């Protein structure tokens, strides 16, 4: 299949997320699509698979203009996607999953024998061995992914999009996946391969498109690109404007020291330290174990080996309540799901996090509450009519400030911020950076987890890079180049070509 997308624009309301994007996949080409989070990859893919509609632009398949309205339209044209979140039905059998909505029937009944025969054909072709009658949930994510690929072939897909297919796979499963993909190559299929892992891209693909901020910045055959070239195109930005001047202060005493923290299947042998007045950053891709590590620090889960010292005391944190008592605060990754009560007022959101301090004999002290709430919301400059305003009516940036306020109200010594600026506008971002620097001046210890390199570089004193649950590198943030971090996140430059 020859796919050509021309001058694709996409608006969500007033916000433009794709700008005149051209995207082309030639027949039997394995094409990589990369970009940082929010660069527009997933929007482009959603347009291509009929989940979203483009605002303007043209799509051609084999030089014929085509229209997508639904997922079924895309499938009919021969385009299938294997998603990061798999679209399988865990309780149903492999066979049922393969044929869902494409059932082969005889009269009103499903023709099971015919389905089995068809399925066996395709599975044998890909050399996948599964029990057709076993529920899908019995198989690992890797096998489930192969089942999705088989499903795409049953629909006679000519172009298959793989969205971060290896992010949850073991090394062995990756090998197996690649074997299957090589069979697809021989069968004349085209592939769009979305991945953060550059070595894989060099192994599989012939060409690459790089998106940045909703624009196509580069399309090139891969043999003319190298590792650093790709990363430069991906992150190419100006560090200057977004960040205030970093305050220079001498760090105080050590607030937290982690030695060899390990939790099975999540992170391994992690050591780091945090002094008062320091901001340390954790870099890594999704699934690198950053959030898992933070959860263990905050008592949501427990680490199994290693030692944690807080204020020069060895501690075992068994619960969130204990972590709070020890002076930790945790601004979680998903403010809407974990961070806030969306239908409640600002006051209540701050109150619920400080019930112990604000109540006596089980009764809430109203005066004390409004005083603390006012003080903490002013500190972070929440913009609202009053503290009685419902969280849902606030902008994303202001919601995030409320999360910060409710934690500052607990008077922590150490604040963990997990993706604190995700999905908020630039102005609020700036205010949050200002606030982080203020905390630094007040000798808080701040741990910043972020997927945005620019943020880590602009804010932190020291960056720890995690990959697959292990600490790959500790970098003093003085003379780091962005590419350095990217290289460590993506698996070293052993695959780079010159």
């Amino acid at each position: 299949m020859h796919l050509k997308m021309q001058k694709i624009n996409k608006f969500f309301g007033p916000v433009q997320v794709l700008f005149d994007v051209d995207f082309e996949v030639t027949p039997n080409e394995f094409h990589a699509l990369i970009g940082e989070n929010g660069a527009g990859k997933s929007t482009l893919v959603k347009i291509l698979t009929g989940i979203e509609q483009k605002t303007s632009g043209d799509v051609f398949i084999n030089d014929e203009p085509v229209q997508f309205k639904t997922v079924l339209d895309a499938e009919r044209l021969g385009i299938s996607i294997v998603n990061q979140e798999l679209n399988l039905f865990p309780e149903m059998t492999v066979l049922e999953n393969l044929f869902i909505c494409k059932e082969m029937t005889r009269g009103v009944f499903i023709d099971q024998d015919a389905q089995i025969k068809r399925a066996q054909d395709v599975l044998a072709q890909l050399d996948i061995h599964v029990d057709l009658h076993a529920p899908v949930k019995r198989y690992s994510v890797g096998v489930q992914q192969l089942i999705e690929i088989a499903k795409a072939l049953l629909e006679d897909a000519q172009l298959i999009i793989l969205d971060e297919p290896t992010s949850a796979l073991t090394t062995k499963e990756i090998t197996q996946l690649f074997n299957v993909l090589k069979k697809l190559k021989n069968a004349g299929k085209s592939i769009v391969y979305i991945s953060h892992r550059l070595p894989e891209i060099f192994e599989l693909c012939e060409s690459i498109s790089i998106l940045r901020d909703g624009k196509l910045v580069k399309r090139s055959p891969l043999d003319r690109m190298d590792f650093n070239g790709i990363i430069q195109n991906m992150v190419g930005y100006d560090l200057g404007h977004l960040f205030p001047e970093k305050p220079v202060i001498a760090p105080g005493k050590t607030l937290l020291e982690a030695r060899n923290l390990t939790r099975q299947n999540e992170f391994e042998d992690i050591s780091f330290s945090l002094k008062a007045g320091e901001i340390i950053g954790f870099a890594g891709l999704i699934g690198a174990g950053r959030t898992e590590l933070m959860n263990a620090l905050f008592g949501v889960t427990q680490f199994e080996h290693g030692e944690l010292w807080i204020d020069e005391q060895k501690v075992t944190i068994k619960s969130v309540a204990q972590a709070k008592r020890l002076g930790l605060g945790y601004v979680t990754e998903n403010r809407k799901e974990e961070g806030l009560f969306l239908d409640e007022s600002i006051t209540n959101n701050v109150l619920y996090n400080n019930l112990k301090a604000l109540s006596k004999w089980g009764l809430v002290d109203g005066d004390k509450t409004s005083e603390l709430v006012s003080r903490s919301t002013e500190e972070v400059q929440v913009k609202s009519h009053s503290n009685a305003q419902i969280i849902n009516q606030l902008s994303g940036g202001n919601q995030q400030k409320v999360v910060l306020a409710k934690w500052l109200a607990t008077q922590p010594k150490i604040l963990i911020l997990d993706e604190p600026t995700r999905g908020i506008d630039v102005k609020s971002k700036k205010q949050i950076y200002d606030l982080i620097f203020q905390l630094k001046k007040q000798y808080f210890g701040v741990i910043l987890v972020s997927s945005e390199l620019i943020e880590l570089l602009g804010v932190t004193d020291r960056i720890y890079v995690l990959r697959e649950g292990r600490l790959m590198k500790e970098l003093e943030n003085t003379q780091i180049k962005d590419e350095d971090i990217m290289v460590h996140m993506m698996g070293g430059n052993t695959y780079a070509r010159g």
Partner: protein
Amino acid sequence: MQEVKPPRFIDTAFDFAKQNIPLIGLIMLIIVMGILSPAFLSRFNILSVMRQASINGLIAFGMTIVIISGGIDLSVGSSLALSGMVAGLLMQSGLPSSLAILGALASGALVGTLIGVLIAKGKLPPFIATLGGMISLRGLTLMLSGGVPVSRFGDTGLIAWMGRGYVWFIPAPVVILFLAFAVFTVILKKTVFGKHVYAIGGNEKGALLSGINVEKNKIFIYMISGLMSALAAVILTSRVNSAVPTAGEMYELYAIAAVVIGGASLSGGRGKASGTIIGAFIIAIINNGLNLLGVSAYIQLFVTGLIIIIAVIADRKK
């Protein structure tokens, strides 16, 4: 890759047991009751238990589809009362019983369809839509009947047979129950519609992205549930030879209990017709057995509740 090992007998047996906890529970219950009360295993009593299970069982088949799809239907008890009253009033007005039965079935299907539309198109949570249905349909039934039962439809015609007739020595409701069992087994196992019900309950977003018409299927699902309550209504009306406006109270809960005891998951995607009929039998046997043993009705209720909780815990363990 998964290697296929030759199964050992003990593994196979253990596997079977794990997959069929409700069936094993039923067999154990029969053995225990048989030992405690000799009358329990008499032919008369067995048929009587099955007849008791039939009304709940029929409603529960509809409920099974609803629950597999990830929904819930609290309106079935009230819908039963309404359909029974429709049948009663039609017969009172002089219509032949077969037409009255058709009217009742039509009213059940219509009510189910309306509730399905509220859920599928109106995007109401099934709990709310059917709770509203449950209360307002009860009110509607009381309005239609003036709060008074309609009774004495005679001993002839289809209406008399449905609840009180026999096929050879088997009570008609039991025959209807097993016919419905066969139909629902085939629907869930062999038809495209059945597969889509599982898919919607297992992963609604996935179902949508696979191209399944989720809205249409949901409407159909609740229509079937309404239809099954209407069928149960006809049998109940015939059994007691009257249409009672307060009939069917708490039936929704017993139907849900039968489905859940049968191994279905309230979060959707899992359930079987065979599990549901076993669930209905278990509930009927507990009531019947405790009756035979002379245990008070209050304790029966208490025990039934406990069994539901135990069944769900046992099922989760696997």
